[in-house]
């Protein structure tokens, strides 16, 4: 797969990572999924659509290397090649940061389409990290998508907002507006899942969430200490040592590429009594 993918013509698949609600893990998931795809050998680029509140660069650990951005490219001030930051850990991964100083109106539909079309000639997967909300920035992130990953926490406001976003995906996007086009393939990614709290009935189950949203499940990412640790150091969780969260993201990535992977819902392993007593090695 690794070497195969590079010689084939690029797949040019556009996937938006969206949610409506903020703080549910869109950027964490964008980073983890894009790094996971790149690790499989797929040429992958991840784009930050959160104009004015750039954060993907920090999550990816390339904040000190940003020269030109997505908006510079849209406005013709820089070539796409100059704005793309090549990841130093995975050769097939690139990051397109957004502007920290402009506002969302700088994202024009024509501009976004032009950039995406250019990326499609070089990349297998184009991951669009959407801003929170359902305003212009979020609409631009989803408009040209072929697929959508709706990041949802098993919590009432997140599920409600995800439902709203699913509605927009099926009405306010290019595929929705084009007669005869196949609908966007939308899947839900449940994050911050806590099996212990589900077992005690304090948290909605995966089935509860799926019953309400009525879309296929891409994966279940358990609440994990590995997430904060990875973001502290600017490493996508899928590139940062083994953990329950990185395993869950790897599984989700495999499913995105069409593989059948059994859904596991076990959380982070808790330290046993002896481990607690004597302290843990890591």
């Amino acid at each position, binding site marked *: 797969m690794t070497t195969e993918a590079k010689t084939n013509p690029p797949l040019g698949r556009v996937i938006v990572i969206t949610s409506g609600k903020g703080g549910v893990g869109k950027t964490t998931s964008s980073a983890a999924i894009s790094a996971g795809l790149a690790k499989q050998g797929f040429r992958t680029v991840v784009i930050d659509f959160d104009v004015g509140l750039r954060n993907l660069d*920090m999550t990816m650990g390339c*904040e*000190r*290397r*940003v*020269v*030109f*951005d997505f*908006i*510079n490219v849209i406005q013709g*001030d*820089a*070539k796409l*090649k*100059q704005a793309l930051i090549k990841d130093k850990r995975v050769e097939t991964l690139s990051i397109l940061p957004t*502007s*920290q*100083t*402009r506002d969302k109106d700088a994202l024009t539909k024509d501009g976004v389409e032009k950039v995406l079309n250019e990326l499609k000639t070089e990349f297998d997967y184009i991951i669009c990290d959407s801003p929170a909300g359902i305003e212009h920035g979020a609409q631009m992130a989803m408009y040209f998508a072929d697929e959508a990953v709706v990041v949802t926490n098993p919590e009432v406001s997140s599920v409600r907002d995800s439902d709203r976003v699913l509605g927009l995906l099926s009405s306010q996007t290019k595929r929705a507006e084009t007669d005869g086009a196949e609908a966007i393939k939308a899947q839900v990614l449940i994050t911050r899942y806590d099996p212990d709290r589900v077992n005690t009935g304090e948290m909605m189950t995966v089935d509860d969430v799926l019953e309400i949203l009525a879309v296929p499940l891409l994966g279940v990412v358990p609440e994990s200490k590995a997430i*904060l*640790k990875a*973001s*502290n*150091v*600017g490493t996508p969780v899928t590139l940062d040592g083994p953990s329950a969260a990185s395993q869950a993201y790897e599984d989700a990535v495999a499913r995105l590429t069409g593989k059948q992977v059994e859904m596991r819902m076990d959380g982070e392993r808790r330290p046993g009594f002896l481990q*607690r*007593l*004597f*302290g*843990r090695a*890591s």
Partner: protein
Amino acid sequence: MSLFSFARRKAPPKTAQTAKDRLQILLAHERSSSGAAEADYLPMLQRDIVAAIRKHVPIDDKDVEVRMDRGDNMSSLEINIELPAAAKGKAD
């Protein structure tokens, strides 16, 4: 926390400290006036450099690569210009 944790207090790498350091470097830069103006000066700088080189050598916009690495004490700006086939090689 655990019974013997005092004995092993020193070693583990603290990612929280890394997070704080990264933020301090980034925010010091973003809060300064040059941080805000940067988005405007880099494209202009690049245009000027390309124009200056074009007076002597025909190059394309695509042949210019600008790289930045920001540090706490020093930032570096690296500009790579690929010269056309006749004058093969790279000039920094």
